[in-house]
């Protein structure tokens, strides 16, 4: 093992291009025959600046990208998005309520300390501790971990959380209700461990590069806010021999055109996104650099069922039917997005819903139906339907709002006022229900339908509160209690069917993740629906 490592270092540093069989012994994920480049440095665009690299303070995607390289949870994901062992080598459960994880003995922190079950006990407790005030503490509540909810509410002490270190390498979690997909949920950033001694020693300062101790494949070496985060391999990482990259850089680039330009100037290997308007040109001129995959997100318009005119089901249905989703997906977006007829995207694992009846009609039939419904509701040329559509400022949202507004105007004679607000104002307006129709979207936290369906539950202040359906909530309860996967899927389908019937939202399209990826980058997770791209699996191919 050790010898191989030296060989690798030598080869890499000399830039020799041996037949790669010798590499295969070391870096198992690099396919045979691949010639590695001498310089193994990767530069990734990362959207916006990370709010924090403390897993218990974050909630965004850019943060998650960085943390996945710095910390490793009980489980991680492979390139296809399957859950695979992380710090835990194996796990078992008999009733989906008590889970026992067996940790690998060679897992180490970046200062050489072993990663033990006690670290996970500490970290999970820290995540729900009101003093930590983690924004994603509700995620633990969603796993129904014993007492999580009461601890967050300050009713119980954090030590009562349903976690236990049976010994240094055996970790047990107890849930209140059976959650069959619990193990998969452990891949989320909020479930990452933190190093107790470091956190306690440095307090809020523990995430500074000079203090940071992690157990992931990389450690942070430099952090300039709003410019770059640099990482180098963690030599104590249990699987470090497989790490090929010697340096990973994350750049917070908010402007996708600027990001694209830097990619084209050769300064970035992998972008965060692609500017919509440029997609066609890039496809023509840089087809080899485009990487597109399905994404675990849905774009939809939320209708306020408690306010006129959308308290009338016929009106909700009419405006939903009149949206030509094919035009949007094909012409206006055109990156491979699919029309959406439900809240949960089809890419979600084991999720294969029956399309609602209206999805099977042609657009012409839908328009006719929509006109009929609207007339029944009492709207016509003399008394046109008027409402305002709220969206947050962004080129993409603006474009779709204008397009859909124009569809409504043309087919139904509806007069729509577009109302854009900057992000935080928009959130406030939307959450307080001061809207008639509003843009929204959601990306799954884990690859299971409940991460979407839970949005429309009556107590969800973002989505369901403007819907409040007892029937829907009952289905949720049944799904949580159901023990068979098949039965649960059926309940999710029933929820989707209910959404199509009540139409509290207008599903519009299912996202794809498109980015520019330099062809010399290998190991990119082309099929990971959650877009988790672990840098440890990536490498640079020689030109």
């Amino acid at each position: 093992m050790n010898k191989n490592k030296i060989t690798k270092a030598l080869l890499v540093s000399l830039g020799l291009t041996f037949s790669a069989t010798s590499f295969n012994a070391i870096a198992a994920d690099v396919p045979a025959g691949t010639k590695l480049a001498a310089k193994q440095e990767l530069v990734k665009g990362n959207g916006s600046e990370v709010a924090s690299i403390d897993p218990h303070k974050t909630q965004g995607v850019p943060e998650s990208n960085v943390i996945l390289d710095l910390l490793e949870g009980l489980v991680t994901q492979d390139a296809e998005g399957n859950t695979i062992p992380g710090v835990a080598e194996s796990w078992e459960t008999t009733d989906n309520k008590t889970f026992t994880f067996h940790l690998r003995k060679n897992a180490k922190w970046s200062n050489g300390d072993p990663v033990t079950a006690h670290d996970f006990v500490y970290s999970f407790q820290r995540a729900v501790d009101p003093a930590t005030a983690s924004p994603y503490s509700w995620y633990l509540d969603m796993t129904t971990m014993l007492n999580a909810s009461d601890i967050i509410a300050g009713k119980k002490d954090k030590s009562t959380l349903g976690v236990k270190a049976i010994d240094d390498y055996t970790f047990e979690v107890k849930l209140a209700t059976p959650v069959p997909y619990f193990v998969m949920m452990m891949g989320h950033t909020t479930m990452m461990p933190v190093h107790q001694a470091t956190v306690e020693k440095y307090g809020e300062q523990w995430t500074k590069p000079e203090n940071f101790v992690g157990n992931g494949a990389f450690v942070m070496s430099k952090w300039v806010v709003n410019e770059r985060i640099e990482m180098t391999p963690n030599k104590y990482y249990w699987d470090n021999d497989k790490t090929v990259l010697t340096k990973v850089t994350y750049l917070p680039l908010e402007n996708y055109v600027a990001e694209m330009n830097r990619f084209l100037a050769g300064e970035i290997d992998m972008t965060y996104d692609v500017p919509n308007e440029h997609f066609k040109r890039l496809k023509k001129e840089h087809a080899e650099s485009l990487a597109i995959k399905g994404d675990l997100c849905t774009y939809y318009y939320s209708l306020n069922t408690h306010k006129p005119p959308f308290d009338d089901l016929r009106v909700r249905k009419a405006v939903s039917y009149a949206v030509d989703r094919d035009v949007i997906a094909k012409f206006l977006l055109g990156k491979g997005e699919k029309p959406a007829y439900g809240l949960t995207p089809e890419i979600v694992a084991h999720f294969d819903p029956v399309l609602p009846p209206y999805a099977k009609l042609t657009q012409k039939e839908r328009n006719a139906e929509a006109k009929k419904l609207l007339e029944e509701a009492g709207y016509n040329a003399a008394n046109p339907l008027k409402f305002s559509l709220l969206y947050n400022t962004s080129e993409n949202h603006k474009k779709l709002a204008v397009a859909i507004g124009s569809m409504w105007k043309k087919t139904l004679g509806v007069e729509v006022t577009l109302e854009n607000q900057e992000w935080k104002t928009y959130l406030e307006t939307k959450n307080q229900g001061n809207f008639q129709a509003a843009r929204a979207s959601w990306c799954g936290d884990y690859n299971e339908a409940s991460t979407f369906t839970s949005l429309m539950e009556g107590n969800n202040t973002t989505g369901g509160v403007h819907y409040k359906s007892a029937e829907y909530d009952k289905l949720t309860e049944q799904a949580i209690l159901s023990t068979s996967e098949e039965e649960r899927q059926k309940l999710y389908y029933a929820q989707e069917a209910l959404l199509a019937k009540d139409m509290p939202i207008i599903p519009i399209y299912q996202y794809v993740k498109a980015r520019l990826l330099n062809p010399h980058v290998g190991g990119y997770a082309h099929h990971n629906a959650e877009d988790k791209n672990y840098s440890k699996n990536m490498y640079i191919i020689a030109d």
Partner: protein
Amino acid sequence: MFTKKQNVEAVEAFSSNLEIQGRSLWQDARIRFMRNKAAMVSLVILVLIVLAVIFVPMVAEFAYDDTDWYALHEGPSATHLFGTDSLGRDLFVRTFIGGRISMMVGVLGALVAVIIGTVYGATSGFIGGRVDRIMMRILEILYAIPFMFLVIVLVTFFGRNIVLIFVAIGAIAWLDMARIVRGQTLSLRGKEFIEAAHVSGVSKWNIIRRHIIPNVLGIVAVYSTLLVPSMILTESFLSFLGLGVQEPMTSWGALLQEGAQSMEVAIWQLGFPAAFMVVTLFCFNYIGDGLRDALDPKDR
């Protein structure tokens, strides 16, 4: 340029009766402005643009919000003279209709800036002493207050309202102007003719009105033409915050912003609105120069 006789008359008028002097100054200015070729040509072009902006959208073939899914990002052609945007909307009509709000914001914003800035700056500089210091400290506070929050709060409390655009733009536009005018005034205050007026018992306000302001108008005219483009761009930032024009209506600032995002794929989306804006601003520029020359009280 003027005969000696006129010159003498002007001096006489100045010394004998300040009231008449005030009137003849404006007449002089008008005559001199009319003789400035560049300024007059610019004025004519500007009037033409204004007329086009008002009337072209009324008679154009397409409406500004007509989408066409089969003509996305089409280059200029006989049907779409200026091409189409990413939703297939005709840019010809959008460019003209966008000029409405932009011209209005540009001119009115600059006007607000000129009026408030000049009066504030002249008052502060002329009175001087403690008043000047307090007025300048207020200016510093206004400079540093986060403008974005001002706009957001305005929108939250008063909703979306076209008047608010001018309030918001006017609120920041005059600050630089006030600083410049004050600087000029400080220098003018030491001049003999001001002291003369002072001695002969003219009130402070009248000195500001009759002597200081006419003498700073030259630099004001120059600087206000510089303000027009920044007003037009500020307007597009305001719509970013939810104030200002909303889609599908548009403005030059918004068109430019959109065009800049896609200039490699649809240069016409940037080019046509930009060309109109450039021509308009050049016109303003030369008119500003003409005004400066015309308003210079020394130059007669």
